C-alpha cells in the first residue's frame, strides 16, 4: 500500500480511537476539578459498567437500549457508593492517601468482576454497525468510526451541560475556589458527588463503546491507565486540553503501532507521559498549577 495512504488511514483510525480516551479523560478531569482527587478506579468503573450492560442486555435478555439504561443506573449507583463510603471519609487527608484509596477501589472492582464474570472474553450485543466508513479513500472500521461519533456527541453535550447548567456552574465554582464556593452557599459535597455521577456516565458509555470495539474482558479497565498520559498531556485541570490530548494520543498509539510493531502500542502512552513530565509538566493546556520545589 502507498505509505501515505497507510499513514493517513492509521492516523484516522487512531484519532477515532482517541475519542474514547477523551471521553474517559473527561470524567477523570471533572472529578479532579471538583475534589483535587485523581481517580485511579476510572478504568474499573468503566469495565464494571460494560459488565452491567452485558448482564442486563444478554443474561437477562432485555435488549441493548434497556441494557444501556440499566448499566447507566448501575454505574451511577456504584460511583455514588464509592464517593460516599470511601472518598468522603478521606476528605482533607493527604493527597497520596486519597489516591491510594482510589487505587484500592480499582483493585476491589477488578477482583469483583473477575469473581462474578470470570476471565473469559464475553460477546456483547453489537450496538454499532460493522460497515466500514470510507472517507476519501481511507478505510475506517465501522465500529471505531461510530464509537468516535458517539463519543463526540456525548463530550459536546457534557461540555454544554457543564457550561450552562446550574450544576455545572457550581462545579466550576468549587473547582476554582472551594472555600469561596462554600461561603457562597454551594454545597461542595454535593458537587463532588455530582462529579462522580458525571464520571460514572462517561465511564459507562466509554466502557460499553470500548467493549463493542474490542471485546469484553477484565483487562478492559487497563485502557483507562493509558488515559493518565492523556491527562498529563492535556493538563490536569483543563477539559479542552484533555479532549485534544485524547485524540492526539489515540493517533500516536495507532501510528506507533503501525511503524514499530503492535506490541509498542501498549507502552506509547507511558513513554509519552514520561517525556511530558520531563519537558512540560503543566501539559499543553493546563494552568500553571504545577508546583516546583
Amino acid at each position: 500500500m502507498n505509505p501515505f495512504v497507510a499513514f493517513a488511514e492509521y492516523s484516522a483510525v487512531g484519532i477515532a480511537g482517541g475519542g474514547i480516551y477523551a471521553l474517559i479523560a473527561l470524567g477523570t478531569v471533572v472529578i479532579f476539578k471538583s475534589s483535587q482527587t485523581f481517580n485511579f478506579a476510572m478504568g474499573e468503573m468503566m469495565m464494571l459498567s460494560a459488565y452491567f450492560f452485558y448482564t442486563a442486555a444478554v443474561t437477562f435478555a432485555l435488549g441493548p437500549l434497556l441494557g444501556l439504561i440499566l448499566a447507566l443506573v448501575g454505574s451511577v449507583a456504584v460511583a455514588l457508593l464509592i464517593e460516599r463510603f470511601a472518598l468522603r471519609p478521606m476528605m482533607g487527608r493527604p493527597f497520596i492517601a486519597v489516591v491510594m484509596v482510589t487505587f484500592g477501589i480499582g483493585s476491589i472492582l477488578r477482583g469483583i468482576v473477575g469473581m462474578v464474570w470470570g476471565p473469559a472474553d464475553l460477546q456483547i450485543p453489537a450496538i454499532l454497525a460493522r460497515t466500514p466508513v470510507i472517507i476519501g479513500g481511507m478505510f475506517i472500521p465501522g465500529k471505531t468510526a461510530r464509537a468516535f461519533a458517539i463519543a463526540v456527541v456525548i463530550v459536546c453535550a457534557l461540555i454544554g451541560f457543564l457550561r450552562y447548567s446550574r450544576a455545572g456552574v457550581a462545579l466550576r465554582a468549587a473547582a476554582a475556589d472551594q472555600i469561596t464556593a462554600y461561603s457562597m452557599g454551594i454545597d461542595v459535597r454535593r458537587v463532588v458527588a455530582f462529579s462522580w455521577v458525571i464520571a460514572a456516565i462517561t465511564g459507562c458509555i466509554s466502557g460499553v463503546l470500548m467493549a463493542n470495539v474490542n471485546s469484553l474482558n477484565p483487562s478492559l479497565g487497563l485502557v483507562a491507565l493509558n488515559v493518565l498520559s492523556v491527562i498529563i498531556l492535556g493538563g490536569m485541570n483543563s477539559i479542552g486540553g484533555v479532549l485534544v490530548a485524547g485524540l492526539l494520543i489515540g493517533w500516536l498509539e495507532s501510528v506507533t503501532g503501525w511503524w514499530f510493531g503492535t506490541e509498542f502500542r501498549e507502552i506509547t502512552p507511558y513513554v509519552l507521559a514520561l517525556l511530558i513530565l520531563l519537558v512540560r509538566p503543566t501539559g499543553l493546556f493546563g494552568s500553571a498549577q504545577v508546583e516546583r520545589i
Partner: protein
Amino acid sequence: MPHAPRFSRNTLWALLLVAALVALPAAVPRYWIYFAGLLGINIIAVHGLNIMTGYTGLLSLGHAAFVGVGAYTVALAQSRLGLPFYLAIPLAGLAAAVMGVGFGLPSLRIRGLYLVIATLAAQFILNFVFVHWQSVTNGDAGLTVQPAMVFGYPLNNETRAYYLILACDVAFTLFAVNVIRSRVGRAFVAVRERDRTAEVLGVRIVWYKFVAFALGSFYAGVAGGLLAYFNQFVNPEQFGLLLSVFFLSAVIVGGMGSILGAIMGAVFMTLLPEILRGGALSIGGTFGFDLSSILVPLRETVFGLLIVGFLILEPRGLAQLWKRARYALHRPPNPDARSGGAS
C-alpha cells in the same frame, strides 16, 4: 536516676526473635521454610517501599518492576559476567536504584500526582522490556539462575537460602532503623509532613526525596536479587502490577512510616493469599463448589479492601493496633496512684 541498661527491652526481644528464627528450620517442615524465605524477601521489598511511601510520602506504583530489575540483574550478572552473589546482590540493588532514579527524577521536583504516574509508567515500560527484549531477558520464558555459592556451599535448598535471606533481613532492617533515626530519616519525615516548612528550615527537599527514592529502589533491587536466587528462575510474569499492589497493601496494612509496621505488613500479606486459598478451598469443598478459579480475583478484592479499609479506619496500620494493644496490657493498674495522691 539509674543508668539506662545497655540493651533496651526491645533489643532483647529482637535478639530473641532472631535466635528463634535461626533455630526455625530445625523445628518446622520444609514447606514453612519456603514461606519464611519468601516472607524474608518481601520484608526487604516492603522496607524499601515503606522508606519511600511511608516515611517520605512518595507513592510508588512501580515497586514490583524495580524488584524485577534486581532479579534480572542477578540473573544476567551470573550468566554473563559470572559474578558471585556477594557482588551480584549489591549490583542488583544499584541497578534498581539507578532505574528508580531515572524514572523518578523528572517528577521528584514536582509535587502531587506526577511521581505516581512516573512510577506507573516505570511499571509498564520495564515489564514491557522484560517481555520484549528477547536477546537479553529471553522474553516470557525467562532466565534460570544457579543457586548462590557461599564458601563453596551452593545454597540449593530452601533451608540454606533461608539463612542467606535471614542474614540480609537482619542487616537491612537494622540499616533502615538507623537511617530513620538519623538526620536523613528525620528529613524524610519532614518532607512528608510539611515540605515547605522543611525547606525553610534548611532541609533540601529535592535531595532527600532523591535519596529516599534511590534507597527504596535499592531495597527493591536487593529483594529482587534474592528472589532470583531463591526461585532459581526469573520471568516477567512475577513482576506485574498485582505485585506492586501487593507491596503497597503491605505498607498500608502494616503501618506507613513504621519499621515494625513494614515487617508486620509483609508477614500479614505473605500469609494472606495462603489463608484465602485455604479458606476458599475448604468452603468450596464443604459446599461442593470449585472455588480455585476465583482465587486470583479474590486476592485482588481483598488487597483492595485492605488498602481502603486501613486508610480510612486505621491509617497507621497494624503497628498502631499492636501498640494500642500493648498499651492496654501494660497500663498502670491505677492511674491515680501516680498523680501523687491528689484524689
